[in-house]
């Protein structure tokens, strides 16, 4: 008992330490390196070091905050979906939910650009939410027909491809100078997110994650199967709808601000569960949020610094780290099935 608690406590301490370290690193490192000493001074006396102050508050802090919050949201969304489908490989990107959101956001952007108005963040989130719900609906339809999880995953990936190709089509046919932005966004990136957008994102994501946390108890019963949960007094219908809405909202929010970000939703909860040796939602949801934040901060740092001044898209980096984890899980699962 004690060793388990210790493991969880140590896990949390490491996550928080990593988070703090990466936040500082992300703010300090960049095309213009700002050492912590200078950062400290610039924040205390903005007048003395205007350049540093502007870079830090205008660009780096919003971007860092975005990577942390959106990364956390993705990991929590992944964990919710994994519980919903009782499948450890489910995630917003793999099931095509992010791509659905991406499609509707791209449509909104193109329409708004061609009509000469700029869509605000709330509209973007709404569009993304609608798109993610459409994808989710398709996936639910398929999952009611086929019980096999591998089929579901393949269908999700296919839905993702369809949505992505339509998005590309839309992007190609719209001729506007802003299209470069749109193109960057459709590849996934934390760059160019301003402080108002970060605040909007936080206002959505933090309450949603708290709601998800409050669902930990029914979720833990649901992990033992739908029948078990129903017998424990869980209102299954309401619970399932809540899971769908919360995970779609999280995925939509991330997509609206940063575009599609791959594999975070699958890899992070898995890493957290195996490190903490538990799948209890009460423990894993907050830890996944922290883990997602750490993972995305790390990946964002790589996108900015590896080939600086050229920036990579965030999914390029998250895939490199995330996809092997998914492959490992698939292999492990097959072996596990054979033994079971």
């Amino acid at each position, binding site marked *: 008992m004690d060793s388990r608690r210790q493991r969880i406590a140590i896990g949390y301490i490491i996550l928080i330490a990593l988070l703090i370290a990466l936040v500082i690193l992300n703010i300090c490192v960049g095309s213009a390196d700002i050492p912590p000493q200078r950062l400290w001074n610039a924040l205390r006396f903005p007048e003395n070091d205007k350049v540093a102050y502007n870079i830090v508050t205008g660009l780096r802090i919003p971007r860092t905050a975005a990577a942390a919050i959106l990364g956390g949201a993705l990991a929590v969304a992944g964990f919710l979906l994994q519980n919903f489908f009782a499948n450890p490989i489910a995630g917003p990107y793999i099931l095509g939910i992010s791509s659905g959101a991406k499609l509707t956001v791209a449509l909104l952007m193109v329409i708004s650009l061609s009509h000469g108005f700029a869509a605000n963040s709330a509209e973007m989130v709404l569009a993304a939410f609608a798109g993610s719900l459409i994808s989710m609906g398709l996936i639910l339809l398929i999952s009611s027909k086929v019980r096999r999880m591998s089929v579901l995953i393949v269908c999700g990936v296919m839905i993702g491809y369809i949505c992505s190709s339509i998005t590309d089509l839309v992007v190609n046919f719209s001729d506007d100078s802003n299209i470069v932005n749109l193109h960057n966004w459709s590849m996934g990136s934390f760059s160019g997110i301003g402080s108002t957008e970060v605040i909007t994102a936080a206002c959505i994501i933090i309450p949603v994650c708290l709601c998800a946390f409050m669902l*930990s108890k029914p979720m833990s019963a649901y*992990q*033992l*199967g739908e*029948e078990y949960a129903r017998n424990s007094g869980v209102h299954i219908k309401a619970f399932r709808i809540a899971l769908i809405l919360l995970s779609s909202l999280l995925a939509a929010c991330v997509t609206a601000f940063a575009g599609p970000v791959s594999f975070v939703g699958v890899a992070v909860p898995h890493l957290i*569960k195996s490190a903490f040796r*538990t799948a209890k939602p009460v423990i894993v949801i907050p830890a996944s949020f922290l883990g997602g934040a750490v993972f995305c901060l790390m990946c964002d740092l790589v996108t900015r610094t590896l080939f600086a001044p050229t920036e990579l898209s965030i999914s390029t980096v998250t895939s490199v780290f995330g996809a092997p984890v998914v492959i490992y899980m698939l292999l492990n699962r097959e072996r596990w099935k054979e033994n079971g």
Partner: protein
Amino acid sequence: MAESGLSTRELSVGYGKKLIVSGIEISAERGKILTLIGPNGAGKSTVLKTLCRQLAPLGGTVYIGENKLEELSGNELARSAAVLLTGRVRTEYMRCRDVVEMGRYPYTGRLGVLSAHDREKVEEAIKKVDIEGIADCDFDRVSDGQRQRVLIAGAICREPQVLILDEPVTFLDIKYKLELMDILKRLASENNTAIIMSLHELDLAQRVSDKLLCIKGDRPERFGSPEEIFTGGYIEELYGIEKGSLCEYYGTPELLGCDGEPRVFVIGGGGSGIAVYRKLRRLGIPFAAGIIHENDIEYPVASALAAKLVTERAFELISEESYRKAFEIMSKCESVICAAESFGTMNEPCRELLNEAERAGRLIEGAFDEK
């Protein structure tokens, strides 16, 4: 009258519009075991699922204690009825103890954190089903029998009035089957729980149940004690057994005997003949047997398998008439096997049969093989 755990009035069950069983009137008393038996697809699982509100009834009412099932809140229901259905549970990073702890679900607060009292109950349940040794093992890695026990421990620490189990022993080996039955028996008497389950194992159903509900077609056919059900060939009728038979005393099956002119005569009695009869059946050799008293332990097997059987009424000396009949059949057989190990006043004529066979040189001694 004993305290009622669960009872039904005119209950009809089914899926959607499709009625499967109707007119179910049962009462499961606390401290007693009620078992549902009946052929495959008769709707036993459907009935059980309706009793625990996994399915809505198509008509009628289920009462848990004094309360109507549909009026209970989710939490009240969870406290009063625990369920183990057949679906296999897959878990991730859950120890057996974690699974047992989930049993306390309806008693814990908003986030499901267990109090000291809850933990006590969990420990008690773990002790009761004797899984202390595996409590910290991964639930997904223990054997089916252990897993079933862990789930029962979870149900126990919920402290329900009613425990519902759908074919709880189907995939277990005989050791675990018996252990599980022992646990259920103790649970019923010590915790005063009403247990309702479905079983395919008639031998176990007969031994463990206080009441049996027989479901066939769209109606429950009979509801009564095992003594009332395992009688008059009813079980064979219930399951529509044609290619074999069922011994009502033991609840055990026997294959259909080989028809035809008997080739072997078995002098039996006392129990040692059973192995011989079954071996002959395996070899596919039609045989005759005699002279068996109707209260002999061999009688059920012999009457199920022998092509011809000479019997004598219970506790009577073997009559001249029976002897003559046996002798006549024996003289038509190619060979004779003596399975009886001893002879006494009751079966003296069997010794004579043996002597006659020996004289005719048709007695096979020792072990016999397919010749």
